[in-house]
């Protein structure tokens, strides 16, 4: 039995990972694990007033904060029979579009794109796609700006309330938003071309059911009162449970959902599949140009679908602003008298269908049910990863499993930064590290950096090696803690190879030594997009190409100070070879 796992998907509303267990030629199990602690938010809202609930629930997630607020408000207004005037509805739509822009542009450009254009991460990608990276950041800021204008602050703004808004934006503010949206159009069109023409691999492909909100009046959009499925079925929002059927699994505090016993998918790809025919204007043209049957089977096309939705959003904003300007008067918050009621609100968060459902008894919340998109996608994420792993195994491409699972999980956009950081280790190819090391040395005297944690037995081998090299009088040997302060190390020694000394788990016999290019290890470790300006100054693609990892297979990385015997022997061999 062999286990392939990606331990830290940096955030799935916190901390998650994916693992596949392989027995010979068969994938026996795939698990999408969420380590985030339980918060019991649904239970916390019981006994609160509807207003308090709307304050509390956006705190579920800082990234989808406005989608949560929007869904909760819609649910409460349904439960309490509150009707809001058109200006309120329009302004809510605008705030929601801000969140879509922010989330989608980050995901496709910074997290997804590097995989497809052959760069190990967004930083390295910047060397060839500088303009795209820059403008995409501006686009994200524009989304942020709309969210702040509408809600009061970037994260957890309280301006949207049951019955309306505390305050509306000024006419000038709206006009600025409109003109700024128009300015982005050329770049947005380019974005669609870029992402619809990417070379998406054929594996995994399989049919699934797609679910999303069904906006009224046969329009495209991100909110509605019905759920539409790719099977053609329509489910009233109050009957959402016939879609979701939640259950608990022991490896996650996030609940799971299945429709008629089968996994289903939500998100941009679900929306484009179910509602794409409704797209008009440029978005409609692009849909007709690019949409084909593969979009119905392959989750990787979620990236293309998000790009298409960015175009829809940028076309919608100028019209939306014009509609808003038809209502110069700011309506006051609608008051209500109802103290009892039951209601559900559904919206599309950037990553899919979000459901809030409440029961109000005696003016207080008596029951709450919240179903998030990532919870609904979890089953399909596992299923597609399973299909990918099995297929690759059958084709004798077992070495691609880890990488492909990364790609699949990331395509679902489970939560922005969750896809940013996936510890990546591939099965290493056979090579003679001694020979390779001598080759590297020919490029110039290497700079060595010891990496690891000394308190965790074999994990400390990198530090140990570096210290030993120093003791032997070798210069330009650093410990991982020191390199951040050594700007010279990165900047002025381009001609010199950089070798990281580290314990690397490449599923080999303990003590096995291997020397690999650094990007082979970090293929998918997309460092944060937002830190791009900073990190790109620290390490460029040229530098990366001349960087290596000299890894030793550890036997144990349990807490403890002692090295295992096999590793001790390997350390001695490496030391001798380096000093040779």
């Amino acid at each position, binding site marked *: 039995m062999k286990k392939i796992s990606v331990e830290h998907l940096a955030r799935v509303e916190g901390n998650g990972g994916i693992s596949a267990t392989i027995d010979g030629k068969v994938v026996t199990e795939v698990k999408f694990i969420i380590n985030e602690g339980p918060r019991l938010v649904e239970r916390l809202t019981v006994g609160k007033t509807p207003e308090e609930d709307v304050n509390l629930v956006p705190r579920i997630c800082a990234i989808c904060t406005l989608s949560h607020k929007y869904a909760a408000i819609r649910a409460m207004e349904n439960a309490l029979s509150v009707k809001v005037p058109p200006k309120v509805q329009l302004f809510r739509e605008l705030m929601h579009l801000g969140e879509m822009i922010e989330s989608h542009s980050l995901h496709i450009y910074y997290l997804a794109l590097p995989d497809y254009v052959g760069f190990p991460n967004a930083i390295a990608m910047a060397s060839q796609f500088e303009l795209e990276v820059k403008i995409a950041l501006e686009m994200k800021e524009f989304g942020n700006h709309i969210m702040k204008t509408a809600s009061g602050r970037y994260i957890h703004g309280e301006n949207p309330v049951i019955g309306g808004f505390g305050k509306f934006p000024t006419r000038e503010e709206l006009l600025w938003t409109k003109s700024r949206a128009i300015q982005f159009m050329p770049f947005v069109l380019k974005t669609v071309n870029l992402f619809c023409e990417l070379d998406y691999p054929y594996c995994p492909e399989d049919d699934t059911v797609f679910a999303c909100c069904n906006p009224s009046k046969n329009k495209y959009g991100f909110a509605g009162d019905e759920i539409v499925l790719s099977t053609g079925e329509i489910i009233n929002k109050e009957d959402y449970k016939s879609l979701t059927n939640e259950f608990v*699994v022991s490896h996650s505090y996030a609940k799971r959902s299945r429709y008629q016993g089968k996994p289903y998918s939500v998100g941009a790809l679900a929306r484009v599949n179910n509602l794409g025919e409704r797209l008009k204007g440029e978005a409609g043209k692009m849909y007709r140009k690019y949409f084909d049957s593969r979009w119905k089977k392959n989750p990787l096309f979620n990236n293309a679908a998000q790009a298409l939705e960015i175009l829809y959003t940028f076309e919608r904003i100028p019209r939306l602003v014009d509609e808003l300007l038809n209502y110069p008067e700011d309506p006051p918050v609608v008051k209500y008298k109802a103290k009892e009621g039951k209601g559900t609100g559904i919206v599309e968060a950037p990553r899919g269908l979000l459901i809030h459902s409440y029961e109000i008894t005696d003016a207080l919340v008596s029951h709450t049910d919240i179903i998030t998109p990532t919870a609904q996608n979890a089953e399909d994420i596992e299923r597609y990863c399973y299909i990918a792993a099995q297929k690759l195994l059958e084709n004798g491409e077992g070495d691609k499993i880890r990488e492909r699972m990364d790609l699949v999980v990331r395509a679902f956009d489970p939560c922005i930064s969750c896809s940013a950081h996936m510890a990546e280790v591939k099965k290493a190819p056979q090579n003679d590290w001694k020979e390779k090391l001598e080759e590297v040395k020919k490029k110039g005297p290497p700079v060595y950096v010891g990496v690891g944690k000394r308190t965790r037995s074999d994990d400390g081998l990198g530090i140990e090696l570096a210290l030993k090299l120093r003791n032997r009088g070798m210069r330009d040997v650093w410990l991982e803690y020191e390199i951040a302060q050594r700007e010279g190390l990165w900047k002025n020694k381009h001609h010199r190879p950089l070798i990281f000394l580290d314990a690397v788990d490449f599923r080999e016999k303990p003590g096995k030594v291997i020397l690999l290019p650094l990007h082979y290890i970090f293929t998918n470790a997309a460092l944060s997009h937002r830190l791009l300006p900073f990190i790109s100054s620290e390490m460029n693609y040229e530098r990366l190409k001349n960087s290596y990892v000299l890894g030793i297979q550890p036997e144990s990385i349990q807490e403890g100070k002692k090295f295992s015997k096999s590793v001790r022997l390997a350390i001695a061999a490496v030391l001798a070879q380096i000093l040779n």
Partner: protein
Amino acid sequence: MEKDKKEKLKIGIYELTGCAGDALLILDCEKELIDIFKAADIQSFLMAKSDNIDGELDVALVEGSVSTEKEKKELLDIRKRAKIVVAIGICACFGGIQAGFRNKKNWEKNFKEVYGDIQMTHTKPVQSKPIDAHIKVDYYLPGCPIGKEQFLSTFNRILRGNPPELYRFPVCVECKWNENECLLNKGIPCLGPVTAAGCGSICINHNLPCVGCWGPVEGANLTSEFQLLQEHGFDRDFIKKKMANFSGTGMADFLDKLEGEKK
């Protein structure tokens, strides 16, 4: 110059259970971010980068509450490695909304109602607590999420080896600076008088009452706020609940005392 660089402080930014809003806010300081990363040596920041190092630290910023055994262990390890620990955001300072079930029995009952009898295989859940329930905390930076200005000034002072100067006054002070009309005078239940400032009285600027999401200000006169709201005709349960929504353990003593009193 070389000497200065050597003295850069080693900083780690950690997320426990919460919405990750405080870490996200740090990333949202787009213009200042480059300077932050130049001024300090960011050793660990999971949300932002992947080459994280768990070594000795000068300062650890910790967001979120402790909600699993694994997080508890992680936190103890952070304390061991860091000279200064700063709790950032309401979840770390007071446990946040998820610390709302103040007693353990109540929490256990609710946990069971959500997850049933299933045995979690990956990590054991524990009742959400602020980080100072498990370790000594040196400074508290309140917020939900933290405010950019206060974060930057605090960070700056710590980098220079000074203790932070936090706003030691309630939201009301900022509200007056912003020349808002007092909502309490209009009979709207506002928690401004007892809530830590720093948000710039953002809700009241939008004609909405303060919900207390930053938690209690140091030395908050809770009794007086309670009486004031009672005078405006709100009942005890309503006020208690309002105060408890975000404050976690922050007002627990006061609220527990009220529980004990007769109605």
